[in-house]
């Protein structure tokens, strides 16, 4: 493996948000377009809408349209509300495509979110609906300075504290830049006056000494941590730590993990619902009550000039196909499934539906006898990044110091490695996750009790994790996907520029029902 390859690989593994950027080449600098509750006044009397899918998009739409006076029906394939908004808890059973059933054996109050697990503060739509539904939020620690950056090929495979790598990386860069500034190498680009300011800012930013050097000192230890922390009394005196050399940081590739919390979607504050992300879907489902029909597998979507008829079968008690009919249809079915459902829409919409590949992704939850990451390593929440195939370890952002057992996210994997994990049976996946994770936390083998591993390509209700757009497919298909086709509109994270995030589902649903509402109003009660 070439050095360049190695760096690229570690960078890829370490860069939590690199995936989203690489796979969704547009739209990530944009803030959520959510601007407050939608106004759907003047719904025609008796107007009806059929919503396919009770995930975040479908239930957002159902909630708003019901409140606006529409007659709403929702058809959902699963036996529960939420879709990818989902939490696995002790006692839950999950059968993936291929037939493997996993029994979640977590203790009470312990859980794993196989799908989304964090809500950035600027996902205003998600924030609105969690508030509306009375869901308590907890902080989600995207960045934990005491969690690890790990390369199996550097530092003897020993994980490094994020704090140390970040301080040393910035410190060495500051020293280099200060040197260049003092040698006037920057001449034209920095004025004489600005040079003074730049030098002072570099000293502060990089924790340099009075000679603009990044060395072992109180200043650098105040960033990277001390060998012996300051304390009280006779044992109070701190002992400064020694920075890692620049070339070691560069060679390790761990520098690529430093900016993980700087991306817009990862910036503090982020939140998680207390008790699991699935609390949102559960609350939404409860709110909608009998409007949602579960266990309904859609097989045909047919529109005519007066309405839309959807054929479905009840997967719990299969019998003759049943139908549901309404004036309008909002379809949130994930595209790999929708592409296989017979539907009379325009060629351009059909082409768009077939044009979006769905990402592979794996999440594994592991229960341990004790919270050794807290007890032994003082890691309270946050994420460790590694070049190992498990890619991420996420520590629970709740229940700190609670004594008993704990569940952590043992792996969050995407891309090629996720495909390979998907190709294994669930017990093999869990075993591999434990094996790899023990390279970072040797306590794993001693403390591990049980685990679950969800492979999104094998999720019967999505056939993938999220839609992957490129600039080419965006240009060719995106508008065609989102355009209302007769009486049918689509929504979901796949119909958004916030792909892979729940906010994409919410905002696409609001956008689509706003446009459907306009049409319904224009056509009046005679629709």
């Amino acid at each position, binding site marked *: 493996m070439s050095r360049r390859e190695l760096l690229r690989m570690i960078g*890829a593994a370490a860069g939590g948000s690199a995936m989203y950027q*690489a796979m969704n080449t547009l739209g990530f600098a944009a803030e959520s377009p959510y601007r407050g509750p939608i106004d759907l006044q003047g719904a025609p009397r008796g107007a009806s809408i059929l919503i396919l899918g009770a995930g975040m998009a479908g239930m957002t739409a159902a909630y708003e349209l019901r409140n606006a006076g529409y007659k709403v029906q929702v058809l959902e394939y699963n036996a529960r509300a939420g879709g990818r908004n989902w939490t696995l808890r002790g006692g839950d059973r999950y059968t993936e495509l291929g037939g493997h059933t996993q029994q979640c054996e977590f203790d009470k109050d312990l859980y794993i979110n196989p799908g989304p697990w964090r809500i950035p503060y600027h996902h205003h739509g998600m924030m609105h609906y969690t508030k509306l539904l009375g869901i308590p939020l907890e902080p989600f620690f995207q960045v934990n300075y005491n969690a690890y950056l790990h390369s199996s090929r550097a530092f003897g495979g020993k994980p490094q504290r994020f704090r140390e790598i970040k301080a040393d990386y910035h410190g060495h860069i500051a020293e280099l830049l200060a040197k260049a500034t003092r040698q006037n190498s920057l001449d034209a680009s920095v004025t004489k006056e600005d040079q003074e300011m730049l030098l002072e800012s570099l000293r502060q930013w990089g924790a340099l000494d009075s000679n603009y050097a990044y060395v072992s000192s109180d200043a650098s230890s105040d960033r990277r941590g001390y060998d012996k922390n300051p304390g009280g009394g006779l044992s109070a005196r701190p002992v400064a730590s020694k920075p890692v050399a620049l070339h070691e940081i560069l060679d390790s590739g761990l520098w690529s993990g430093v900016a993980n919390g700087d991306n817009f979607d990862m910036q503090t504050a982020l939140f998680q619902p207390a008790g699991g992300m699935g609390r949102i879907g559960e609350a939404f489902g409860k709110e909608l009550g009998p409007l949602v029909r579960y266990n309904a597998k859609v097989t045909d979507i047919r529109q005519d000039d007066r309405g839309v008829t959807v054929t479905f079968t009840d997967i719990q008690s299969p019998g003759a196909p049943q139908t549901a009919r309404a004036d309008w249809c909002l379809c949130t079915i994930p595209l790999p499934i929708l592409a296989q*459902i017979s539907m009379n829409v325009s060629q351009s919409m059909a082409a768009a539906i077939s044009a979006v590949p769905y990402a592979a992704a794996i999440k594994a939850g592991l229960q341990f006898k004790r919270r050794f990451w807290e007890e032994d390593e003082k890691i309270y929440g946050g994420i460790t990044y590694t070049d190992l195939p498990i890619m991420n370890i996420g520590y629970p952002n709740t229940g700190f110091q609670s004594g008993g057992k704990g569940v952590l996210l043992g792996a969050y994997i995407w891309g*090629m490695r996720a495909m390979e994990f998907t190709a294994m049976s669930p017990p093999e996946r869990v075993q591999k996750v434990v094996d790899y994770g023990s390279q970072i936390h040797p306590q794993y083998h001693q403390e591990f009790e049980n685990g679950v591993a969800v492979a999104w390509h094998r999720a019967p209700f999505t056939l993938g994790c999220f839609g992957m757009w490129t600039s080419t497919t965006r240009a060719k298909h995106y508008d065609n996907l989102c355009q209302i086709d007769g009486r049918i509109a689509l929504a979901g994270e796949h119909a958004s520029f916030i792909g892979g995030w729940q906010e994409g589902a919410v905002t696409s649903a609001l956008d689509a029902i706003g446009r459907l509402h306009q049409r319904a109003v224009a056509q009046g009660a005679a629709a």
Partner: protein
Amino acid sequence: MRNAALGLAIGAVLLLIGGLRADADSPLFTSRATLGSLNGEQIYAHICQGCHMPEGRGAVGAGAYPKLAANKNFISWRFVALTVLDGRNGMPPFGFPAGRGMDSGPAHLSDAQIADVVNYVRSHFGNAYKAEVTAAEVSALPHPAAELIGPQ
């Protein structure tokens, strides 16, 4: 990476029985560096069977993964090769240019590998198409756009 080809072959065997000791160089997990060494059978075991299942059984949920066993569409090698190259109905493409993908992103398979995996699935799981597709024939088919996916 030492003995990559041998390691991968061993890995493919161990994949079936499990219990491989984990380490960073585990041949079970490919990287962009080692992915290129996989043959058709290994590609099926490492990648395709995640969705199409062992023995090409396919699966049915809200939607389906097509069964590859005794699949009538396989009479057309072009159909199979284009599906692997460009993806289809949500299936990720594997034919975008080398060097444009990431380890964490979709995998790149060479035209020779695509030919090999096409030949593998067309001659296994109850499919018995004799005609061998060549890398050159795969190369002649349309590939996904060069700008497709990759770090900017």
